[in-house]
């Protein structure tokens, strides 16, 4: 739910695909042991608006005419529930997507993922998120897509408010100051836009706290690391520099509209939003304005600046193989995984505005060659350079702990309890209910 690919991203991708369509032609190895025509099935969701699956299938088929990849459609929000049911019933597709890391443990521990360590070994070492799928030294999925969180900002609104644009050196304190300055500056300029927009997802606060705090461990059951991040989030909404949680939830505000129609000058959001914003600007759903991406603010100054590597978070999206697959198809399926996670797949995905797990120079070049993507240096740096930590570290208790922290999030942001009390409550619940 937290990282659901916005359906509009799909629309965006279709538009982009039409304007920038040349098929993927990476330097991948030729098809391995597949003899004669082979048909593989691949799971995907909301196919009409999420073209990444068809793109990968087509690009692979073009390089390997003997192998046809057919898609099986699932519901986007109920994907894991439906997939778990299909796997249990023995009717799941040959290759299926790990939508996020929250349920990876369930699949892996349940024996529903084939060991694909040999595929992982052949991958470019620069591929992001590979280790997240490792259990006891073996890999059970490969990442083909790795979104990570950046700070989107509206250059026009910054200018209007007379506030200096981000330069890559921001900590969260700088961000909070800028948000408040922007809000007052914009108010003086006669605009009712706010300084920033933080969506109601728990990951907007917790993802950064987990990634950027030294020694933070979700599964330890010690959630003290969340406190400074929540203090700041609550202070921002109390200062009026950000729509408060109640308004966001009761009015069903969407982050696309908040940033796209210039209701907020900044917004921390995943890189998938680039494609959405471009498509919405094209269709008129979003205003036309100058925007850019900056590295996400950091907890302390040691990881700021364009000569350092900013720490952010994001779960990779991976592909795994159903162990019930026919033996003669295994080689072809593994080859498809290698293609999707390799240069060929990355190029094909970058062409439709999706952030591949492999960000080689040529892939980044393809991505920034798309019409409408901001090409300034900071945006390129923010997109390509980051240390992305998982939102959901793989563990048996991750799902249960995230549910507890989801309650904590709404409790704190609705200001029903103090930050310290809510965190203490979460810790005692974690101790009593999990593990």
């Amino acid at each position, binding site marked *: 739910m937290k990282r659901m690919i916005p359906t509009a991203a799909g629309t965006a991708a279709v538009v982009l695909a039409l304007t920038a369509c040349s098929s993927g032609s990476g330097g991948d190895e030729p098809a391995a042991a597949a003899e004669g025509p082979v048909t593989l099935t691949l799971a995907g969701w909301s196919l009409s608006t999420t073209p990444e699956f068809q793109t990968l299938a087509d690009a692979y088929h073009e390089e390997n005419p003997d192998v046809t990849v057919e898609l099986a459609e699932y519901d986007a929000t109920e994907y894991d529930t439906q997939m778990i049911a299909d796997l249990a019933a023995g009717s799941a597709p040959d290759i299926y997507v790990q939508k996020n890391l929250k349920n990876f443990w369930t699949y892996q521990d*349940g024996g529903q993922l084939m060991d694909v360590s040999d595929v992982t070994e052949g991958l470019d070492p620069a591929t992001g998120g590979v280790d997240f799928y490792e259990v006891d030294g073996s890999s059970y999925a490969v990442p083909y897509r790795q979104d990570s969180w950046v700070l989107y900002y509206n250059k026009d609104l910054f200018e209007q408010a007379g506030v200096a644009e981000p330069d890559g050196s921001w900590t969260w304190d700088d961000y909070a100051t800028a948000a408040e300055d922007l809000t007052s500056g914009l108010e003086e300029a006669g605009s009712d836009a706010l300084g920033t927009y933080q969506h109601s997802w728990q990951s907007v606060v917790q993802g950064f706290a987990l990634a950027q705090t030294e020694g933070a461990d979700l599964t330890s059951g010690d959630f003290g690391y969340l406190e400074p991040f929540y203090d700041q989030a609550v202070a921002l909404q109390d200062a009026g520099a950000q729509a408060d949680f109640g*308004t966001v939830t009761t009015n*069903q505000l969407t982050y696309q509209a908040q940033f796209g129609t210039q209701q907020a000058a900044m917004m921390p959001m995943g890189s998938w939003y680039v494609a959405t914003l471009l498509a919405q600007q094209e269709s008129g759903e979003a205003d036309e304005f100058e925007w850019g991406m900056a590295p996400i603010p950091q907890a302390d100054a040691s990881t700021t600046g364009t000569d350092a590597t900013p720490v952010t978070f994001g779960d990779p999206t991976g592909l795994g193989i159903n162990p019930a697959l026919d033996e003669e198809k295994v080689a072809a399926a593994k080859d498809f995984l290698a293609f999707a996670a390799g240069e060929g797949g990355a190029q094909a995905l970058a062409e439709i505005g999706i952030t591949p797990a492999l960000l080689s120079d040529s892939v980044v070049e393809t991505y920034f060659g798309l019409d409408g993507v901001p090409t300034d240096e900071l945006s390129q740096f923010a997109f390509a350079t980051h240390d992305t930590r998982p939102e959901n570290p793989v563990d048996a208790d991750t799902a249960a702990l995230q549910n507890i922290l989801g*309650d904590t999030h*709404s*409790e704190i942001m*609705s200001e029903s*309890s103090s930050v310290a009390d809510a965190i203490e409550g979460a810790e005692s619940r974690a101790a*009593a209910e999990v593990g």
Partner: protein
Amino acid sequence: MATTAVDDRRSGPPGPLPDAPPGPRRRRPGSRLKRRNTLIGWSFILPNFIGFALLTLIPVVTLFYLSLTEWNVFGGAEWVGLDNFTRLVGDPSYRTALWNTIYYSAVHIPATLVASLCLALLLNRKLRGVAFFRTVAFFPYITSIVAIAVVWNMLFSPEYGPINQFLSFLGVENPPGWTTSADSSMPAVIIVGVWREMGYYMLLLLAGLQTVPPELYEAARVDGAGAWSRFWNVTLPCLRPTMFFVTVILTINSLKVFDLILVMTDGGPGQSTLVLSQFIYAKGFEENQFGYASAVAVTLFFLCITVTIVQFLWNRRRDA
């Protein structure tokens, strides 16, 4: 067996008399008839029974078995005896969910009953356009629950919502935060629950009201009974069978409340509106702890059944 007995009796009149000597010739058509009637009987029951067995009976029986196991969908379920139930006792979230379910039911049931009875009495008169008003009252029940949740959430919006604007207009200084505050989220959900369901129960009570013999009112009036006295001594006693039915259904539905809360607050803020059904959903379908979720479902089942039995016993005592 019961079916056969009934069939025998039914086939009596057109067939041979019971005391007629059973001859070999007559016996064959008789047994054929019997078979035919049995088949007809089964064919009436089967379509419903197959559906019931496949979709309700077998899952319920499986539920009881699963509640004694640990199972995450894949592989076999591991027998753990009563472990899930002992875990329940020490689980603070379960206690919260149980308490919230009781809170919701304790307020929602009487409120809905009173509201729907008032509506039914109001719309049982010969008013102009009464059919229109009845339809209006029934409308919330057939409206999509998601639409209801979205619209009510907007109405409840603490700063911009019309409800709080109206309260401020009346001079209320600190209007509640409704669904955005842990203190007032449950009342907010109950208000929407009552509003949504009162039309449905109104319809049932209306049907009950139509069965009250008008002579009784006339007689009461002749005896000099006022409106309140007529309501108390004529309407309510005549309505008792309907009221009983409505209360039982309403109680079960309140204890099982799920969709409304899921789409309106998702159990939040914090755990302020977490109810048992939602707890079951989270444990089962979000965390894949199907054994534990089944154990919670078993407790909800017994809660429903106990309350219903108490209601039946109470009703029987009143009947006696």
